[in-house]
C-alpha cells in the first residue's frame, strides 16, 4: 500500500471530510470501563498494549497523521501563540524531540528513520516528506525550536512541565487540538492553578493525589489516563480563542444530523519524565468518533447512552454539552436494549 492510500486526505475544518475507516472504528479508544462516569485518579502504567490498539506503541501514528499535521500548520499560521516555550524550557524541548524521534523510528521503521553520529543527527519523515540533518542540542541547526519542530510532526497536543517547589509548572506547549482551554493564558501556571476551572475534582482530592503521584514519576516508567468530551463536527481546534466562530455549531444540530455531526472526543493523555531537564512531557492525543460510527459497536452504544444520561449536571455543563444532552440521550437510547455490559472498554468482550 502506498503512503497516499494509507494516510487520509481529509479536513477538520470547513467541509469536515474527516472519516474513520472500519479498522479505526474498531480500535477507537472508548474511554468508559463502566456504565457511569465520575472524575478519579485514573492513571495506569503506559506499557505496550494489545497489538493493533492505540496502546501498541508509546505514540500512536494512525491513518489521520498527515491530515492532522496539515491542520496544525493551518492553525499555527493563523495564531502563532498556540506554540510557546519559556526560555528555560528549551532543554525539555530537546528531551521531547529525542523521545518522539526514537519512538517513531523504532515503532514505525517504514515511515521514520533516525541516524545518529554523535550529536549529528539525520531525521527522515517519509509521510511528511522531511529529510533534515541537524546537531542535537544546537537550536541554530533547526528551522524551529526543538519542541515546535517535533510537534509539527506528531499528532496530539503537547505540554512540558517544569518541576520545582513541589509543584509542576506548565511552561511550554504546542496546543492546537484542545478541548477548550488556552495555552497562552495558562503558560506559567502551576498544577492547581491551571486545573482551577474544573468542577468537583478538587473537593474529591483528585488533584492533590494526582500531583503527589506525578512529582514521583520516574524516567522510563510513563503513565497514561483518559479524558473525554463532546464536539459537534470533527473540529480539532475547539479553542477558546476561536469559540465565537465554532460556538454556533452547537445550536444547529438536529435529530436528522446528530448521528453524523456529534462526535465523542477522547484524549489519550500520557506522562513521561524527561531525562536531562527532569521536566514532565504531557502528550494529549485527541481521537474523535461520530455517534453513527460509535453505535456500530453494541456495547459502546449501550454504555455511552447510560453514561451521558446519568452524568452529573456539573460535568455536562463544564464539558459544554448540557444544551444538547437531551438530543444525545434520545438518539443513543435507540441503541440501548437494557442488557448488561461487560467490564472494560474493549468492544469485542461482549
Amino acid at each position, binding site marked *: 500500500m502506498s503512503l497516499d492510500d494509507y494516510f487520509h486526505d481529509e479536513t477538520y475544518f470547513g467541509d469536515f471530510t474527516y472519516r474513520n475507516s472500519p479498522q479505526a472504528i474498531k480500535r477507537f479508544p472508548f474511554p468508559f470501563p463502566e456504565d457511569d462516569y465520575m472524575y478519579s485518579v485514573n492513571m495506569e502504567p503506559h506499557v505496550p498494549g494489545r497489538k493493533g490498539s492505540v496502546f501498541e506503541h508509546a505514540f500512536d501514528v494512525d491513518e489521520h497523521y498527515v491530515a492532522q499535521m496539515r491542520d496544525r500548520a493551518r492553525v499555527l499560521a493563523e495564531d502563532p501563540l498556540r506554540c510557546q516555550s519559556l526560555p528555560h524550557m528549551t532543554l525539555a524541548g530537546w528531551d521531547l524531540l529525542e523521545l518522539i524521534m526514537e519512538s517513531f523510528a523504532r515503532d514505525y521503521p517504514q515511515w521514520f528513520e533516525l541516524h545518529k553520529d554523535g550529536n549529528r543527527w539525520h531525521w527522515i519523515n517519509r509521510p511528511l516528506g522531511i529529510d533534515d540533518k541537524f546537531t542535537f542540542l544546537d537550536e541554530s541547526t533547526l528551522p524551529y525550536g526543538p519542541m515546535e519542530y517535533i510537534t509539527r510532526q506528531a499528532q496530539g497536543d503537547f505540554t512540558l512541565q517544569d518541576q520545582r517547589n513541589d509543584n509542576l509548572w506548565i511552561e511550554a506547549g504546542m496546543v492546537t487540538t484542545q478541548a477548550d482551554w488556552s495555552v497562552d493564558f495558562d503558560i506559567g501556571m502551576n498544577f492547581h*492553578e*491551571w486545573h482551577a476551572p474544573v468542577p468537583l475534582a478538587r473537593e474529591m482530592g483528585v488533584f492533590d493525589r494526582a500531583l503527589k503521584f506525578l512529582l514521583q514519576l520516574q524516567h522510563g516508567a510513563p503513565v497514561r489516563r483518559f479524558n473525554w468530551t463532546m464536539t459537534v463536527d470533527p473540529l480539532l481546534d475547539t479553542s477558546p480563542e476561536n469559540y*465565537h466562530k465554532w460556538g*454556533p455549531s452547537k445550536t444547529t444540530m438536529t435529530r436528522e444530523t446528530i448521528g453524523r455531526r456529534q462526535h465523542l472526543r477522547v484524549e489519550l493523555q500520557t506522562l513521561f519524565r524527561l531525562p536531562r531537564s527532569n521536566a514532565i512531557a504531557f502528550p494529549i492525543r485527541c481521537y474523535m468518533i461520530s455517534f453513527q460510527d460509535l453505535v456500530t459497536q453494541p456495547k459502546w452504544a449501550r454504555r455511552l447512552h447510560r453514561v451521558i444520561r446519568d452524568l452529573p449536571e456539573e460535568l455536562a455543563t463544564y464539558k459544554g454539552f448540557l444544551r444538547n444532552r437531551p438530543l444525545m440521550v434520545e438518539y443513543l437510547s435507540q441503541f440501548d436494549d437494557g442488557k448488561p455490559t461487560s467490564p472494560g472498554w474493549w468492544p469485542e468482550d461482549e
Partner: protein
Amino acid sequence: MQTQFDTTMRSRPRYGVLEPRPGLAHLIVADGEGGEAVLALFAQAPELLETARVIYMPGANGTDMTAELEAVKPAQFSRVPSYAAGRQRIVKVLGDAHMGLQVYVTGTEGLMGQVQRDAMEAGLPHDAVQTEHRGSLVRRVQCVHCKGITEHVRTDPFQCGHCGLNLFVRDHYSRRLAAFQGVCVDAEDPGEVPPAVERFK
C-alpha cells in the same frame, strides 16, 4: 477596609496584609485606596520611612491620597498617573534590586498583578512581594479571542475595547498576564447578550 474574597477559584491570587519586614531597601507601590494601607504600614514601623521608596498612582475611581502620603515624608516619593506610566521606573528598581529588597504592593488587583508579574520577570520569586487589596474591585481582563487587555472592567459582560466582542469575565486568573480571562458571551447564540451587571465596584 481590607477586602474579603471568594476563594473557590484556585488560580485566583490571594492577598494578605502588609507587614514590615527587615530589609535594606523597601519599594512600596500603591494605587487609590492602597494609600491607606501604606499609611498603616508606616504607622506600625516608622523606621521604614528612612529607606522607603513610594510610587503612588491615583485610583481609576478618582481616589487620590498624594497629599496624605507626602505628608509622612518617605525617603523618596513619586506620583505617577498610571501603572503604564510608572512601569519603567518600577522595573528599574526591581532590576537593580540586591538581596534584601522588600516589595509591598497595595490597591487594586490589576496593580498588584502587574507588579508581581514584573517582579517575577526580574527574577524575584512571586512570594517575595507582599500584597494587600484595598479599594475598587475593578478587573484587568484579557480577551481570549484578540488577546487585548482591558483595564478597570466594572461590568459583566463588557465589550472588549480592542475587538468589540461582548465578553463574560471568568474568575480564572493568569499571573503571567496579570489578568482575568474574558470569553465571548454570545458565542453560541450570536446577538443574545445579557444585560451588563456591575459586578466589580
